[in-house]
């Protein structure tokens, strides 16, 4: 069995990679993928603690998160498609109409 600290460290790396992707990527699809990375980092944590504490709640919660993440990606991709249709681009730097 893998020891918990390693798993947590791995999840933290995964989450950090996700945060970096969300903040730094220009491509909207890549931003969505980075969000998936963060969610999955959380899932890893949930499963790891569930296994560690011999409690099935963590795994069930992880399943819910996967379901929500699927729905979220569905909406996110729909927004990206509409964005592309309107602006011929999916560069998030150019999506800055929501300002002063």
């Amino acid at each position, binding site marked *: 069995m893998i020891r918990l600290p390693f798993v947590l460290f791995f999840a933290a790396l995964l989450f950090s990679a996700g*945060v970096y992707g*969300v*903040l*730094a990527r220009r491509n909207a699809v890549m*931003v969505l993928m980075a969000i998936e990375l963060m969610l999955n980092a959380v899932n890893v944590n949930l499963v790891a603690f569930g296994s560690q504490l011999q409690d099935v709640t963590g795994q069930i919660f992880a399943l819910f998160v996967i379901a929500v993440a699927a729905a979220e990606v569905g909406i996110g991709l729909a927004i990206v498609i509409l964005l592309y249709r309107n602006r011929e681009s999916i560069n*998030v*730097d150019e*999506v*800055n*109409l*929501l*300002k*002063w």
Partner: protein
Amino acid sequence: MVAEAATAASGIITSSWIVVLLPVISALLTLFFGKRTPGKGAVYGIVALGAAFVMSLLILWHFVQGGGTYTSGVDWFTIGPFRVEVGQYIDGLAAVMLVVVTTVSLCVHVYSLGYMDGDVRFTWFYVVLSLFTAAMLNVVIAPNLIQLLIGWEVMGVCSYLLIGHWYEEKQNSDAAIKAFITTRIGDVPFMFGIFALIFATGFTTSNISAIGELVKSHELSSALVAGAAILLFGGTIGKSAQFPLHVWLPDAMAGPTPVSALIHAATMVAAGVYLVGRMYEVFINAEPWVLQVLGIIGAITMLGSAFMALIQDDIKRVLAYSTLSQLAYMVASMSLGPAGRNAAFFHLFTHAFFKALLFLGAGSVIHAVHSNNMSDMGGLRKPMPVTFWTFLVGSAALAGIAPLAGFWSKDEMLVSASEGHELLFAIMLFTAVLTAFYTTRMVVQTFFGTYEGHGHPHESPPSMAGPLVVLAIGTVIVGFLGAPQLHAPFFKWVFFDEPEALHFEAWIALVGTAAALLGIITAWKLYSPKRETDPLRRFGGAWNLLEHRYYIDAFYMKGIVYPVRDRASAAVYWFNQHVLDGIVNGAGAAARGLAQVVNLFDRGVIDRAVNGVAGTAGATGGLLKYIQSGNVQRYMAFLFVGVLVLAIVFAKLV
């Protein structure tokens, strides 16, 4: 019947104050509703005075029945041990005065219906007339000096208002001011006299009879009492127009004639004499020189004003000087002790009737010929029979012809003076000659000879003739009340303690009548033939002196009024220019300076604060708006940093 009336009378005496209240009510009613009432409101005064007159008669009846003095009151105010009541003190004297005042006032109220008909301030005239009557009645019944003083001063104000009734003419308003200020000069010592008496009692009472008892028992310092008596007499000198404050009364004739009859002949001027009689215990128990002062002042005034009456052409001024002279008779008689006091009161009583009669008669004549001057009259005997006969009755009474009122009272005073006051007796007798002389002169010039004026004079309306007849009847009968042959009932009612002070001396009655006849015959001889100039002008120097009123008025003007007025006006001008203007300008400059400071503060601090707040908010907003870039990733980065910070803070990692 008599018994019933007696009980009614003794019952009514407890509510004598209603007699005072009635004219107050009528004055208020006339003031507020007079102009809307038919007849312009005269009816209130007449009805109220009629009721007051009936009540006064009932009150007098109580004393005729031999009833006693009645006094009552309610607390007004208290200062430490000094308690002042407002109430009534009714003795025979007060009862007689109530009758006199209400009779004359009622006659004058009725008479004014005709005399003042069509006057611009008819209603106002009746208001003040009623108010005056109330004030005089208040003086009569006042149990203490404070209440008396109030009536006294209200009378002064009413006198002022009525003398100046036709104030459109400067002469009239000047006369009103002169009367008010001159009597006021007498009122100042009067007030100090009151204070001195209250002080002498140790601030315990201002009650007249209580003070009388204290003075009688010599419990008060005699010097203080003498001083107080002289100060009180100052009030009498002012109100009763005695020398040296006599100057206002002749000028007061500027008022309407009914006013002259009521105020300046029968009642208010008599109040001064009444005061001396009321406070007689103070006068007679003070040091002897006090009464001597009364006698001297009385003698000077009686002789001086009788001479003045000789040369007047204005009929009202003849009567005015005659009033001065008769009042001086009373004052002089007051100085002769209790018997003289009694005689003086009797003369006050009779004089009120015949002098009011004479004034109203003169008013009737003036009303007919539209002039005050006797040189515009003459021969009025035929067209004005009622006025003539009543005036003749009044004149005969004034001259002292038996058996009219003036004879009896003058005789009593001469009797009092004959006992050890030879000089005063001689002066009184000589004044009687002069009185008869000027009275005859007045009657002859007015009613005999030929008419010198304009138009066709006619008899006055019944509202004016009626009061004349009533007063003439009064003049005939009131004298008998004091006749010694009829046991002098007047003196029994008024002075139940000492009626024996009165007696009759045949030789004095003869001498008095002879004096009157001497005056009448001389005047008749001089004036009944028609003449262009007054025969008295032969005495050039004396005439000149009299024409200038002994230069007393001129002396007062040049010696007192002008210097005081000029210096005072200069001082007031200086004060105005330097002090008042300085204050006003200073206040203006200060306000201006303050306003400038406030202006600076407003602009510099308050406005700047407000603008600063707005500007700061705007600038900050201008800077902060750049944060809202519209770039979601940047928002996210802020969010992330924020979460990190919070995590660090809450996890206490630092």
